[in-house]
């Protein structure tokens, strides 16, 4: 029995097994050093269930985009299988376009079109008739509040507006699976809300499944049902955001911001320094609740308080989970 049959019965929309893609080593050329062989995806397996918003979280270069390119039929994996709604996309990559709507990071192909024509043309190229493409275009532009800028070329829009216009194009010509590669980059809160409302509507009304690539931990915590944490081409954890956070529930994050410099002449502060992650005047500490209370007492009383600019106490975020799992957090965005 194929995995596709089993997967479809279990309500799995997308089943990925043992996906491997290796970029060959390059030789150095005149001044530019060569690069060693890179395993962009190193045996990735995951299941995305029907109707869920599934996230791929990781810093740039973790292998998220390579994974997405293999899911959307843009790149053939060296090994492994991709099954979407019962279709083997490694053997039939051309079927991906008939199952998946993809929003990539680039808008080069649409940049010189007006918002309205970009959406209409994309719908036409998804096989809609002219009438249906125009009707869906009008509905989607109204839904996302793009009517006022419908006649303007994408090139002349701000980054966030352009992104929203590309998202609109991705929605014209409905597909059961949406693959969105960092859809809200550069958007203001209003546009972000429009995106998530549109995604939720498609999920509630049509059972659409969403695979979301993000390196924004706040967004990941608020919109995702489940998240796969990707690091160096591997899935290092896969759970709900709450389930992941439960793994580090015994920790509290303390952030201290000093006015000029840390008062390390105070012995208690000097002791804290050992477990602090320093970034300029900001110290980040991950402590047990008791030690966190003691630390706050130390810095809010006595001589250390005079040097303190600000402090926060917070329950762990996905970023803390990421760090606890051994990931590098430099590439993650907290906004």
């Amino acid at each position, binding site marked *: 029995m194929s995995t596709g049959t089993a997967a479809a019965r279990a309500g799995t929309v997308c089943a990925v097994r043992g996906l491997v893609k290796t970029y060959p080593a390059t030789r150095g050329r005149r001044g530019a050093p060569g690069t060693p062989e890179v395993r962009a995806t190193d045996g990735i397996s995951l299941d995305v269930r029907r109707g869920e918003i599934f996230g791929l979280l990781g810093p740039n270069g973790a292998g998220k985009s390579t994974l997405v390119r293999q899911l959307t039929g*843009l790149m053939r994996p060296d090994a492994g299988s991709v099954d979407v709604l019962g279709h083997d996309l490694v053997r039939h990559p051309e079927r991906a*376009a008939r199952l998946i709507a993809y929003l*990539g990071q680039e*808008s080069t*192909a649409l940049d*010189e*079109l007006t918002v309205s024509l970009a959406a209409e043309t994309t719908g036409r*190229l998804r096989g809609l008739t002219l009438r249906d493409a125009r009707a869906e275009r009008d509905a989607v532009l109204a839904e996302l509040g793009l009517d006022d800028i419908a006649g303007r070329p994408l*090139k002349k829009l701000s980054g966030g507006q352009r992104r929203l216009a590309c998202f609109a194009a991705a929605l014209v*010509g409905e597909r059961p699976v949406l693959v969105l590669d960092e859809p809200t980059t550069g958007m203001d809160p209003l546009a972000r809300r429009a995106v998530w409302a549109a995604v939720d509507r498609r999920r509630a009304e049509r059972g659409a499944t969403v695979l979301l690539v993000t390196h924004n931990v706040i967004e990941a915590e608020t919109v995702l049902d489940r998240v796969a944490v990707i690091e160096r081409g591997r899935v290092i954890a896969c759970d709900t955001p709450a389930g992941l956070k439960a793994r580090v529930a015994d920790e509290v994050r303390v952030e201290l911001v000093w006015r000029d410099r840390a008062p390390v002449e105070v012995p208690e502060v000097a002791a804290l320094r050992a477990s602090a992650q320093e970034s300029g005047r900001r110290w980040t500490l991950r402590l047990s609740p008791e030690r966190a209370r003691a630390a706050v007492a130390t810095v809010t009383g006595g001589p250390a308080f005079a040097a303190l600019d600000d402090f926060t106490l917070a329950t762990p975020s996905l970023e803390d989970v990421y760090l606890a799992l051994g990931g590098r957090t430099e590439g993650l965005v907290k906004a």
Partner: protein
Amino acid sequence: MEAVGAPASGATRRPDAADAAPLAPRARLLPALAAVYRAQLSRARVARIPLLFVATFQSVGIMILMRGVVDGGSEARAVVAGSSVLVVAFVALNLLAQYFGQLRAGGGLDHYATLPVPPASVVLGTAAAYASFTVPGTAVTAVFGCALFGLPMGHLWILAAVIPLAGAALSGLGAALGLLAPRQELATLFGQLGMSAALLLGVLPAGRMPGPIAYARDLLPSTYGVEAFAHSFDAHPDWSLVGLDLGVCAAVGVVSLAAAAWAYRRAAVR
């Protein structure tokens, strides 16, 4: 009992066919081609008009320069025909090679590659749009040239055949170069070189060329567009000769557009 659970009709016989979700329809060749053509044509308003002026002024300038060198006769016809077809070469070969090179380098091909659209629709729609951009410039150049060299304008209607056929041959070549070039700068370079070849080999009168250069001229598809156009200036044009030249353009057009569609498929899935 064998009918139970069998695919309704026409579905592929695979073990999981009954569980597989239905696929959305593909975009058909002609409607998709029309959609790409329309979208590309609209880009002209935003991005291409200044370049069309450049293409036309370049050709007009060349004719004014050549006015001092050639004085009527077959050489004048060759100059006017060559300069007019040069506009087509500038836009269809050079600009299209640049466009596809840029699209490929910037990840823009992903957009088309993740839509169920036939490669031929994307390539033909774009090539047709670029060929259409050349119409005003070519017509202006031809009329100006006829006035400058005192050539008859009676058969200028032949441009209605020369532009699409030379356009097909040159834009197919331009698209293939743009899609096959490993880097964007190389796509631009190949496009420029192609246009320079069309300029030197098309505009300069063939009679004055040394042997090997004349062979190179025969290899360039725009030459046949130039020849067909030049023949139409004769008092009694030999239409079979014109037809033969245009036939070569058409044949090269079919081959180069097919090559471009192949190059597109190759570039889209890396």
